């Protein structure tokens, strides 16, 4: 166990966990930020995606000791009021079915749109390829990302 000081959603918070604890479980179990989801634990499904210094990152493979002073943004910190263009598009396009993978989808899309604000449909499909939606809401995800990019 060791004290780790983390910058999460603009706040500095310290947590006493083993060095090898994945950020995912720090967020979920220690910080009560459960919007970041566990899906596979091996970086294959994207449900646990957060931003670290703006880069979409799999929190299940990121140990707490590897983060240092970098800024972590989770779905809870994506916007102050829940009105990020992607969150708005998610509502207007009624994307979720079960909803479990969706915060990871939104976080992947948010980091991507920062890099490429005007993507083509094909570029969106490539960019979102790492995030699994078991319900198959992909058509609506694509539409929502396109909608957010236009707004």
């Amino acid at each position, binding site marked *: *166990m060791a004290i780790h000081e983390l910058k999460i959603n603009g706040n500095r918070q310290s947590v006493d*966990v*083993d060095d*090898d*604890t*994945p950020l995912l*479980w720090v967020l*979920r*179990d*220690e910080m*009560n*930020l*459960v*919007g*970041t*989801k*566990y*899906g*596979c*634990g*091996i970086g*294959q*499904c994207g*449900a646990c995606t957060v931003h670290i210094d703006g880069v979409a990152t799999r929190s299940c493979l990121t140990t707490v000791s590897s983060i240092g002073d970098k800024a972590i943004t*989770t*779905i*809870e910190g994506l916007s102050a009021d*829940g009105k990020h263009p*992607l*969150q708005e598009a*998610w*509502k207007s396009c*009624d*994307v*979720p*079915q*079960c*909803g*479990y*993978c*969706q*915060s990871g989808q*939104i976080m992947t899309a948010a980091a991507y749109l920062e890099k490429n604000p005007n993507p083509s449909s094909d570029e*969106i*499909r*490539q960019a*979102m*390829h790492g*995030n*699994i*939606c*078991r*319900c*198959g*809401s*992909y*058509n*609506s*995800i*694509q539409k929502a990302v396109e909608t957010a990019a236009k707004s």
Partner: protein
Amino acid sequence: MPSTPKNTISRRSFFKTSALASGGILIGISFLNSCAPSTEVPVDIADITFNDFNAFIRISNDGKITIFSPNPEIGQGVKTTLPMLIAEELDVAWDNVFVEQGKLDVDNFQNQFAGGSNGVRMAWLPLREAGATARMMLMQAAANRWGVEVGECSTSEGIITNAKGEKLGYGEVVLEAAKLEAPTEISLKDPADFKIIGQEIGNVDVEKIAQGKPLFGLDFKREGMVYAVVMRPPAFGQTLVDFDDSETRTVSGVLDVIRFEDKIAVVGKNTWSAMKGKRKLKANWSEASPAESSEGHDQALFALLDGSQFETMRMDGDVKTAFAEADQVIERTYESPFLPHNCMEPMNFFADVTADKVDLVGPIQTPKGTAYEIAEALGRDMSTVNMDMTRMGGGFGRRLYGDFAMEAAQISNLAKKPVKVVYTREDDMTAGMYRPAVKYRIAASIKDGAITGYHLKEAAVNGNMYSLIPNFFPAGSIDNYQVDVASFDSNITTAAWRAPYTNFHAVAEQSFFDEVANALNQDPVQLRLDLINKAKGTLDPLRTYDPDRLIGVINLVTEKSDWGKKKEGVFQGFASYYCHNTHVAEVAEVVMRDGKPFVQKVTCAVDCGVVVNPLGAMNQVQGGIIDGIGHAMFGEFGFENGRPTTDNFHAYNLIRMNDTPQVDVHFVKNDIAPTGLGEPSLPPVGAAVANAIHAATGVRVSKIPFAKNMNPEVLA
């Protein structure tokens, strides 16, 4: 079942109808001192008679409505759709409705489960009646206050108006209404007057989902809760001999190691410590007996197909003679492996078993059955068991089985603590409950250019034929017709998987008819229409589908997909099917991408009767199609020496965005009572894809996963 525009029923028959269809639905009215439901303060309701209310509705004094959705939400949308039915007949504005998940209530709800595409179908009348009953009582209360006849009153968006134009809000009369006798007669709205049913209503949880708010079982926490990760036998047919937990107990955060049955629970203060602790656990297991393998399953199923140990499910005419006299016999075998459910939210459940109560919280499709099983296992009375349902990160049939909830209860009972059992993805994929492997062999006899005989044989692990399938299309269309089944008993646990039984039967049957059409040099759509028209002329009491409705979706999909109009480089495949009371027809379009067939578009026509929520309905149909394509193309799961050979998504391909077609959905418009949508779009799409792949490449794919079993030389 036709809809009932003016359904006037006596009070006695109302309760009877409810009990038969979806259960007596209790109305619970909580009398509120404040406006917002989130800050409501229930007042003393001890002296108020509830028994004549019939829905789970709360009305605050400012007219805000809370509707409890009785059924578990797995992503099929019932948490939005079922309250719409109540709100419609209650006649309130949807914007004023708050929806909450109801808990298990065995006294006042029936059919509290998610499965079989039954949610809307079973709730259609009872929940509307519940809303209408409450509306009548509210109107009566207002009429009493005004001293007028209730017949002079009308409602709109939660406001009651009398002949003089005076108005009272529901919230103003709710206390008086709750004391009234329930009406002896109620009327349901004419579908033409629907204001909510048929509107595009967004998912009631979308705001919380988009902001990552806690909703799911894995998100649930309670003070003092510990986490348990369980080691189970790695192979089917094994038992636990002994284990060494000395290293596990050195892992920081590990609190306890508990053996139960042939399993070992590592209890930790958080998820990670329990997961880590399990990795350090050393266990000895017995030899798997029998130790099954995919190779063995294949041999056993082929032996069954080749043998004569069948049970005949339906026999018309004499297929033997038809085949003997045929000009040509077409025979093809279709194969599907085991498939795991792979819900994105791994199995998990919370249990707090104390001396006097059992508290259960989590994602479960069968809250009632699971609560009863746990009560029985623990020797408790059901009255001491509480079951709260969380939103589920997918179900697909896996969460019909409460084994993981039982584990949570067992561990909590032994640990004397509130416990959350959490499956790792590896646990989730390897612990059991799979869509069983199945093979179909279908043969047709052709004489003078017509189909004279049809013989379907099924060989499945742990039996896989639903009793109605023998009466599906093409039963009644072909004079000599036979359906036979044979089963291989396996120690691998098998389970319902989205559209159980039909999910691969449709692929086999609808691929086969494409092949028959090719052999006869006929248009595949016309071949189906001719067969259905033949069935239409007969009076087969066993026939399950409605020929006119099946023809309706076929005509709609051929129109919307431009069926048969050649487009350069685009190849179409057709399939139609009826299951879960819903008629579906689909056209898949395949193009060659990087030398391989890629499904770029699917057009789908659906007849599910009234579409209660077009947004949710479209999501279900799209999802079913994409799910069906994903598993047909990539689904692969096997066993060696009793052990699953795949345990996570590095080796198990679920469909991803860039493999996904655009799905274009069209609903037949009618006023027929609604049927299910969670499953029916899935089964036929594998066939539509296989048929389109054949059109594109000349290759027939008859074995899942298609992506692996398409002949690479032909595709090169």
